[in-house]
């Protein structure tokens, strides 16, 4: 497995280089510029971390559910609900609320709202036999719509699509990285990676959720309540995606904003698949994705932005085929 990874990345770089040649840029120069501009600046490194924070959490939301045999493409809805709740609670708190109260309360609100959506998806799956892919897609649209309509009716401030600021106590400190958006939610993401790893590898919960994912029938026969596991795992996955709101709202924008965090839920699927569903892998994949997107921006003057998007898909495809190739070589 591990041997194939560098091969896949090299192959993707080759494809990327061809695309660069197509648009008349010099691949060597572009790659070099990308690396130096990103790694050479504290600010850009911070941006990578900021992106990775959100992606790691939504990525875990996908990988955890997939472990239990559920394809959670409802990250957008779960994150959207988390952002909405986090901002709402953050603004509703009394102005002088100290951080020691405000931060946990807002964090919990984000997790609870995301968890509620995830739990609903899990419930419909377990109790109503409603395929989670369908319900996730529908929830994605519905949550975005409700946030927009409620936002513009009651929350957004005159003429803008931004809500009022959350109380200062709920703001997560930024990391001192050249004024970048990287903030302490990074530690929430790291803690989430560690927690998921531990639950998955070392506890009976993890044993049950993996068993349900691998063979729901065997799990049922062994006395595990498949429905309960599915609902709980989806609620947990939703909570993880919702937690990404801490980075967007409490760490960065300090307010509800239309479109905030949009795309992170879907990109989380890429992070989860690229990380091969392993929590630590998801973390690493998030960093890679963060690097690519910040790097793509940094070389925006050399190549069109579409190129980095294509590259993202190519990396994913290459990693998947390389994994399959190595598996067959081993067999």
């Amino acid at each position: 497995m591990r041997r194939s990874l560098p091969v896949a990345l090299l192959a993707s770089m080759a494809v990327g280089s061809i695309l660069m040649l197509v648009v008349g840029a010099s691949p060597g120069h572009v790659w070099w510029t990308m690396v130096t501009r990103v790694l050479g600046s504290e600010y850009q490194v911070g941006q990578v971390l900021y992106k990775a924070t959100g992606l790691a959490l939504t990525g875990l939301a996908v990988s955890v559910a997939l472990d239990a045999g559920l394809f959670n493409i409802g990250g957008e809805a779960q994150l959207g609900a988390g952002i909405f709740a986090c901002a709402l609670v953050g603004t509703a708190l009394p102005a002088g609320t100290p951080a020691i109260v405000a931060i946990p309360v807002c964090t919990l609100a984000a997790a609870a709202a995301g968890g509620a959506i995830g739990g609903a998806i899990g419930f419909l799956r377990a109790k109503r036999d409603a395929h989670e892919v369908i319900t996730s897609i529908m929830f994605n649209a519905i949550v975005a719509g409700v946030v927009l309509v409620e936002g513009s009716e009651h929350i957004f401030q005159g003429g803008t699509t931004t809500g009022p600021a959350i109380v200062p106590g709920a703001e997560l400190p930024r990391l001192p990285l050249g004024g970048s958006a990287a903030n302490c939610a990074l530690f929430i993401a790291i803690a989430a990676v560690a927690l998921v790893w531990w639950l998955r590898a070392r506890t009976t919960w993890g044993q049950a959720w993996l068993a349900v994912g691998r063979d729901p029938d065997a799990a049922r026969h062994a006395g595990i309540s498949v429905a309960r596991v599915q609902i709980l795992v989806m609620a947990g996955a939703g909570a993880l995606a919702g937690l990404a709101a801490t980075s967007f709202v409490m760490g960065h924008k300090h307010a509800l904003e239309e479109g905030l965090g949009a795309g992170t839920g879907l990109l989380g699927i890429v992070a989860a698949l690229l990380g091969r569903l392993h929590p630590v892998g998801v973390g690493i994949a998030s960093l890679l994705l963060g690097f690519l997107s910040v790097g793509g921006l940094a070389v925006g003057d050399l190549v069109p932005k579409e190129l980095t998007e294509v590259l993202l898909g190519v990396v994913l495809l290459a990693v998947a085929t390389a994994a399959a190739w190595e598996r067959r070589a081993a067999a």
Partner: protein
Amino acid sequence: MTAMIEATLTKRYGGREVLSAARLEVAAGTVHALVGENGAGKSTLVKIIAGIVRADGGSLAIGGTNVDLGAWDRRRARAAGIGIVQQHGASAGTLSVVENAVLGAEGGALLDLAPTAKALEALGAKVGLPIDPWARADRLPLGAAQRAEIVAALHHGAKLLILDEPTAVLAPVEVDGLLATLRTLAKGGTTIVLVTHKLDEVRAVADTVTVLRAGKTVGTFGAPLEVATIARAMVGAELPPPSSVAEPAGDAPVVLALEHVGVAGALPSARPRGRFAGLREAFSGEKRQDAPAPRENVPLADISLVVRAGELVGVAGVDGNGQRELAQAIAGLVPHTGGVKLGGEDISRASAGERLAAGLAHIPEDRHHGGLVLEASIADNLALARRDITGRFAIDRARVRRFAEEQIRSLDIRPTDPEARAAALSGGNQQKIVIARELSRPHVRVVLASQPTRGVDLGAVVRIHDRLRAAAAAGAGVLVISADLDELLALCHRVVVMLRGKIVGERAGAALQGAEARSGLGDLMTGAA
């Protein structure tokens, strides 16, 4: 007599040689039995001959003509007149019987199924294996599905017909009918290769027997067939004598009581495997094994039954007459009416997990479908949802490992590495994992064992039966559900027979001895009594 098959075949899976120049010679117009332990290579050998699996070396001649093994595939084998009914069936579940039958020989871009359907129905009636050609294969009980495949194979008019363990799920009369049909076919010039674990079938029908052990041919025996010799050749040693457990006293406490238990409608067909198992395998480099498609079931009506401590009770019946519902109702896996009492405690409303906790041990009928998580290791399977071993929340990994090693030793599970994947074990060894997990539960009061030895070889059968007897001797009530009458006769103090969801009869004591016992139960099973 000309030779229909002359094969010397070698096959490797992942570097391991599962066939080492195994020889098989079959004379045209004979019935040839192929026997051997689980994993001896029987299925592999016949699959190569039928063109389903490619050989790594050797030679193969069909009807005297050498074939090119490198290019030998199913298409060529069909053209050469080779038909095969595979061990676990190979029909596509959502297709009807007739669709399965025409698959690959549709005779045109547009389907016209009616003539084939009629022909199949007529042929089935003629050979004593009645079938419904329009039924969806996965809606049929295992036995009916097997019948349908056999009839379809006969319909194609093969010159060489290979049957891989065809009788495991058939009722005794059906078995008799099938064996008679095979004899008739052989007389008519068709060559038959029959793979089986049942030596009485061999004796009843075979002209010649080839015994395979560990991928090598250990001998070919012609008439007169000596069952004991063949058995010795198969196992490589004498089989240990079976143990026995005395019948419990009449006042032994009732440990399992069923009161008017019923199950409405068909069971929801659970998916055989996790849906994203494939994805996880992609990441872990594991290979999967397909489970047979789930079957739809007959509902269960008004079952009342008691099992006493120390008693071994058998449930006989042709597959698909409610045995699965009965097991699932007792185990709490389907909603049911009526009362279930375990050691006097009413568990009718309890969940599956609670019933296990209350002292039930459940060996499901299909190890690939409910028994094991195939992708997980032996140790993980042994400790699956066993909080008494793992600990309540954080898993005590050292303890799990110790427990696994203990069980592996005590049941002689191979390989002995607790981290080996369950999927990579042979069928008998997989079954042992299930048995070990269930019978090692603390305070077992009732053992519910469905088809505990289906498809398992002679040696493993003996070991599994011993474990069940030991459980009874230790004071548990044991309920064995099996389609195999011989198993029930060898094991049980008392046997009840199920037909169309009801208990239609019971035999105990002397009525289970002697030659009539078998035929009497057989009549009950088919409703002839």
